[in-house]
């Protein structure tokens, strides 16, 4: 399994999760977990996904989601999981 973390930060609007999930399903990225909360007054959503079977290069997924975020008006980041696990797990 190759896990990545997708984060969405910005103003909450209708359909953010739907649009992200539509993209992910079109490119065979499997969603494992979703959580959301408000931090410092901003909507924060985090998805843990498995990109083992995606039909795209990982870097393209990163760029596509970045562009999708610009369209919706939120910041979408997609990062390989290890940067978080290395930092927070001994």
């Amino acid at each position, binding site marked *: 399994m190759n896990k990545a*973390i997708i*984060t969405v*930060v910005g103003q909450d609007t209708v359909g953010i999760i739907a649009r992200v999930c539509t993209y992910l399903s079109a490119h065979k990225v499997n969603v494992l*977990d979703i*959580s*959301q*909360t408000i*931090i410092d007054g901003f909507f*924060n959503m*985090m998805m*843990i996904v498995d990109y083992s079977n995606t039909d795209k290069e*990982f*870097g393209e997924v*990163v*760029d596509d989601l970045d562009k999708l975020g610009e369209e919706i008006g939120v910041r979408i*980041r*997609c*990062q*390989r*999981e*290890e*940067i*978080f*696990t*290395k*930092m*927070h797990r001994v």
Partner: protein
Amino acid sequence: MLNIMEVHETNKMIEQEKLDVRTITMGISLLDCAADSVDEVCENIYNKITTYAKDLVSTGKAIERDYGIPIVNKRITVTPISLVGASSCKSSEDFVKIAHALDRAAKKVGVDLIGGYSALVSKSMTPAEEMLIRSLPQALSETDIVCSSVNVGSTKTGIDMNSVELLGHIIKDIAHATADNDSYGCVKFVAFCNAPDDNPFMAGGFHGVTEGDAVINVGVSGPGVVSRALDEAKGKDFEFLCETIKRTAFKITRVGQLVAQEASRRLGIPFGIIDLSLAPTPAVGDSVGEVLEKIGLEQVGAPGTTAALAMLNDQVKKGGIMASSYVGGLSGAFIPVSEDKNMIDAATNGCLKIEKLEAMTCVCSVGLDMIAIPGDTTASTISGIIADEAAIGMVNQKTTAVRVIPVEGKGVGEMANFGGLMGYAPIIPVNQTSCEAFVTRGGRIPAPIHSFKN
């Protein structure tokens, strides 16, 4: 499983607190590039660098994108050129040809800087090493991204005062050769004592002869992250303060370790070391000076600065050591005046003086770094500054260095601007009392005794 607060914390470090990997540096041995003619050496060097490092920049960018962590610089270090060119270079001009070959190769592969136009003369100079040192004003003024260093002493050998004396004149000549640009050439040169073989940072990085054919070394950064973490420690005791710094240093270093291993795997080149230094930039909030001020000083330079820095440096190492499989390079808090907003401010208003900076170098990496001094400072005074700093390194068994810029045509109080990460600095006064009779004696200062340490 990861939780949203942990993910938020990491991304906040990157986006708001300027956490980055300062450099991925590929060390390349050029020992096998030596040949009979200097043109052949240049060709060998160009070919080896452009083959080994051809994917360095693109790999760095791909890692940056995959993990969402900025990697600010991609750099190359090479074997000290005084060794590589010794068999073929018959004059300083021959060495300059090699400097141009390094510059061309580095530009071809797209790296930011290349280090290793260096000489290791801790006991005394060979003719080739002296030629390389004498070539520096021309080499550093005619090339753009070549960096140079000279190791003038070590704990085991003492200090070669002949090269210290020569370097005073050479630094003045470099300043003169690049006078149009605030003597920028001096930014690309550093004099060391106890120079490490695996330093990924510039200007002092070179690929030591103890290293393998090629290696990946990584320097992390993150004074901004430490600074924000210290907001929690306000008013708390030293135990709490130290724990906070250690925890933060651990997290920062783990990112460096991840990037280093990934770069090593993708490039098929062994991982060398992580350099645990806190490296500031002139940007607001990315300052070691700010960290020291949050520890409790009104401004850097106040009494207590040396103790605060000693503690900071030690905690960064204690936190970082466990986060990485191999630690090396300089590994300590950097205090480059022109690259640190709060140090620039403290030097400008006179709170931070060169004598205090010298004291600070006793407890941290790496030395008198990026300090602009008056253009009329004499060569012997610069040699005296180098000798003092080298003596601190020699006696304390640590790396020390001098990167001062005697800005031609400018005096105390004026500003020198070096651009970009190199920053800007006020020209600060230097004690001009003569030490000429001392530095011109000739010969070397013997190695110190290694016992009776009081």
